[in-house]
């Protein structure tokens, strides 16, 4: 199955005009599979950390959204222990006009603005609501432990 023109173009552009703090490199043997790393946004508990993610473009892409997951452990109310992400544009609000680049930017933004009201990791969300400074400290700690190169 030939790679659609759109994927080729997107990949080329990711390489040619990279987004600051975001990197996405396709596997040689599977051009639909990307190794992604996102820098934690400044003024967030994740600052200084580099988070690894995996991204896969399914057959129907761009009719269906890419599948994406954190590989690095992260303490975040919208990301569960398996690294799954709760983000509307990855689900119902996906549009074929969105791209890898825009999705990764959304994830980076999510790190800067956790939303405990729409939780995926319930325990983390609970703590975030009850003891925000404590939760942020844990997140910073986890970043130190797991996401610092």
């Amino acid at each position, binding site marked *: 199955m030939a790679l*659609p*023109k*759109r994927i080729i*173009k*997107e990949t080329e552009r990711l390489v040619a005009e990279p987004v600051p703090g975001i990197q996405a490199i396709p596997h040689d043997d599977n051009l639909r599979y990307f190794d992604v790393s996102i820098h934690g946004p400044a003024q967030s508990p994740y600052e200084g950390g580099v988070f690894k993610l995996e991204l896969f473009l399914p057959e*129907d892409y*761009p*009719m269906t959204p890419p599948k994406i997951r954190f590989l690095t452990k992260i303490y975040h109310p919208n990301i569960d222990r398996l690294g799954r992400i709760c983000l509307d544009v990855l689900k119902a*609000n996906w*549009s*074929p*006009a969105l791209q890898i680049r825009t999705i990764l930017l959304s994830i980076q933004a999510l790190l800067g603005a956790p939303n405990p009201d729409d939780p995926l990791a319930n325990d983390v969300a609970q703590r975030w609501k009850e003891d925000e400074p404590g939760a942020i400290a844990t997140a910073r700690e986890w970043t130190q432990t797991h996401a610092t190169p």
Partner: protein
Amino acid sequence: MEDTNPHPPKRRRFFAASSPSPPPEASDPILPSTPQRELHDYAANDDPNSDTTPFAERDEDITIEEPPEDEIDRDVEAAEIKDLSLRFDATMLESVVGELSSDILKRLDDISGGNIERAINMYLDGSWKDVRPSEPKKSGKQSSFDSMFSQNGKRKSPAGIGQSSIAPTPSDEETAQRLDRMPYERYIGSFGAEGYAVRSGSNLLSHGEEVIIGRQQPQQVQKTVRRGKGRPVTVVSQAASKRKDIVVRFSNSRGEEIGRLPHETAQFVSTLLDQKICSFKAVCVYAPEPLRSNETIFLQLKCYMLRQTFAPRALRLTETNRSTGLFETKETEEEKALRLRQTSLVKLFNEIRLFPTTAGQDSKAKREGLLQVAEMAEEKEKEEAASGNSTPIKDEDEPQEGKELEQDQLDQLYKKAQTFDFNSPEAEPAETFTMNLRRYQKQALHWMLNKERDKKNEGQEESMHPLWEEYTWPVKDENDKELPIVENQEKFYVNPYSGDLSLKFPVQEQNCLGGILADEMGLGKTIEMLSLIHSNRNEPEAVSGTDSKPFNLPRLPKSSDVIEPAPYTTLVVAPMSLLSQWASEAEAASKPGTLKTIIYYGSDKSLDLRAQCSAANAHNAPNVIITSYGVVLSEFTQIANTASGSRANSGGLFSVQFFRVILDEAHNIKNRQSKTAKACYELDALHRWVLTGTPIVNRLEDLFSLIRFLRVEPWSNFAYWRTFITVPFESKDFLRALDVVQTVLEPLVMRRTKDMKQPDGTPLVPLPPKTIVIEEIELSKAERAVYDFVYNFVKRSFAENVEAGSVMKSYTTIFAQILRLRQSCCHPTLVRKKDVVADEVEAEAAEAEARGLTDNMDLQALIDKFTSQENDGGEVNNYGAHVLQQIKEEAENECPICANEPIEEMTVTACYHMACKKCLLSVIEYAKAKGDQPRCFNCREPINEKELYEVVKHDPEEAIGGLSGFRENVPEFSLRRIAANKSSAKIDALITNLKRLRREHPGMKSVVFSQFTSFINLIEPALARERIQFVRFDGAMSQQQRSVVLNKFKAHNGGLVLLISLKAGGVGLNLTEAKRVFMMDPWWSFAVEAQAIDRIHRMGQTDEVIVHRFIVKGSVEERMVHKIQERKKFIASSLGMMSAEEKRAQRIEDIKDLLS
């Protein structure tokens, strides 16, 4: 007078040995009187003591007679002067043949030796012209002597015994002096035979005694060869030779009949005697004493070839007083005599163990084959006799006999003709020819010029005619004694096929001033032919401009019933669809004014060709007349239906003798029984050519018809052809038959194929590449519903038929259903269309069957659902100008969904967001499939497919062309509701492709093929809607309409689409202007599609050709392409050569595959 008459008594004495008068050999051998010299000659032969060296003495005779020779001449001359040279009754002669000038009378008298019967015969068959008795009679006059012999040979003589035939006439006198060249008879061998006695007695025959072999009641065998066919004489002879008498008697030297030869020997000996080929002498080896009736007598027969046998038996019919009847029937007597002669010779050679010194192939096998052929013929004859209707022309009447050729046999056949010498000489075309010829085309021109000029290829040795065999005269007789050697005559030649014998080396002649140009399609046969027309033409005498004859009116031919020569005119006969192509190519290939070309068709036929083309009208005569097979046939029928059958009065094609006639696509006449073929044979021309890519379509007889048209002697005689080719082939002796065909073909055919490589490895014709892309089409839901419905219907119905065992019976119905199924892949509404033109079989049944489907309410509903989408909408231009402006600006953006740049078939949502039409539709489709509300990809507004608007960009070209006045009124962009042009998946795919083509290669022309004209009817409005310009070509159009369309397609500047039906446009046309091909629907065999594609991808194509084949995914079409077409690649025999029954069975198999 007396010495010119035949001498019946003398003959009787000699050969029937019944004359009591003593032989005059006692008279002085050097007596200078003709008959006596002859007699002496014979006497010498008959001398029982001279049996070992029969012509040693004769040689002596000659030397002795040398001096009196002059005397004889003087005597004869004196006699002629004396009685004013007329020794026969001129009045009687003239009463038979009509009035003659005294010159002719004199000549006839000379050569006939005063024999009136002979004179009449010679005059009627025209052979008198060949004979020039008044010329010096010294050496080098062999030919005239030969012809005299042959006249002797066919003269009706009362006694049939071989030796008697040379009558002591003046002409024989002359030959007698030539004895040193070929004796009257020459020993060739001997064999033993066991005769049986018919009388009893003692002292009848003893060992060593001379025995005389003879036929007492010889048949009155007529060699009708040289005579005009259908004359009363022949009829008599036919009747006479019906009596089958092969009894050969022998008698002792006292003339008493002793016995007869056994049947198997008599069989061939009788023929050889009757046809005056050989004479036999026999010696008794053993005879019982006393002899009783029916006892066996052992004989040794010595065989002598008669000199006259070697005279050429020319089949040529000379021109004089022999009108060419258009409708003569075949006579078989001639053929039968030929066959007898041929078999007898072969049998004789077998008996005397004489084998050819050089023969092409295994001569033994050849002989066996010949005998076999003869036997078959005999058996057939017997059968016919038994059944009581031995129609002599039966062979001709059998429709299409002859087995079909297997592919490998065909390949083998062509192999020889195709060994093309790339270094063969080239010829430059005449200056009036404007096109540049490729090298191989120049070589073809050289070859053709040579054929027309009848030059032998330089540097080519004269080769022996392949049908002949070379024999060496025996140098020793049966007793091992030396035989005298005749100077320069160690060999003789026999054609075992025809029974012809010759002393001269039989050269393979090419007497046909034309040939078969069989280059494969696309190599430019037309161009090659046009170069020939230019390069070999008669130039009218230079006329001194305009002044000398201000009114240079064509004179009417003097006599109205003679065929008028048309020395400046070439007639081209081509299929109707190619007429205008010929005309335009002829024009394109010629400098202006150098080639006057007319199309002789329909209403243009009113001209009188006799007046137009006559030599008198040289300066206005058309150089090329192009006509169709249909016209030839209709004129032929017209003439045939008039009482006189006179071709001249018609003023049409048959009233003139063209300089050259060319049959294009000559496989049109492959069936020699067809009226068209017969009509074409009768076209008269100096040079005859046929053009065809397939000289043999599937049987050897196909080739015969071409040969017949070319008038290649002797192959144009069907009996001849049959003997050497058809019969061996049918009796499984393929190699030999094909070998002969090869030899026939070789000098006649020039054939190159497209895949031939030049010595440097480059292809003969470098054609630009061709790419075939299969485009898989996904049916829309509504279409799929219709398709599935029809599919299930057909499948069920087929299964029922299989179960009931009525598949063959309801074949047409099933077939029509399959047709509907295939059509439903193209467009759902086609299922109900009645005006289908696809196949004769299909169309006929389609209507009946359509009822079954149309009455079906479920299907109706499905189709309605589909069509409901079609009707509403139209162009919507209520958008503000700023939106259009924005669209214009964004037009070059890439599609946000597929990233294509620019957006393909740009489509706007109600919320003004743009994407490719295809992408937008699939977004909607995808959401619907998931049960979601489709939303705009950009703003997430709900969208639906009815509110999508396609941006239509108007062709600026179109505005300039048709609507230039309204240019300012035509906006550059407009919007149109997308639902309005939803037609069918296939049409959409076509439109998408055509639009892409228009964008990427503006001005490129393309051709769209479909086998359904009703589908073309639906494509037309779709193209019109998209403002894609098109023209249409289908089978329902008249010749004139067709040529208008083709010319328009060629001449049009800029992009144009040609919609063409596969049937009408699959063959012949030249559409190299187009660079893209769209095949809308697959055919059962890809070869048919490939042929259509070759209309575009052929000689003259300058660019790469891309072919799109639209195949609906998951449908019968897919199976047709992947299963059936694949399979057919390996079956060499296409459907064309199966019987209707086989074809059906094959199709049923196909259908099973389709529905499996």
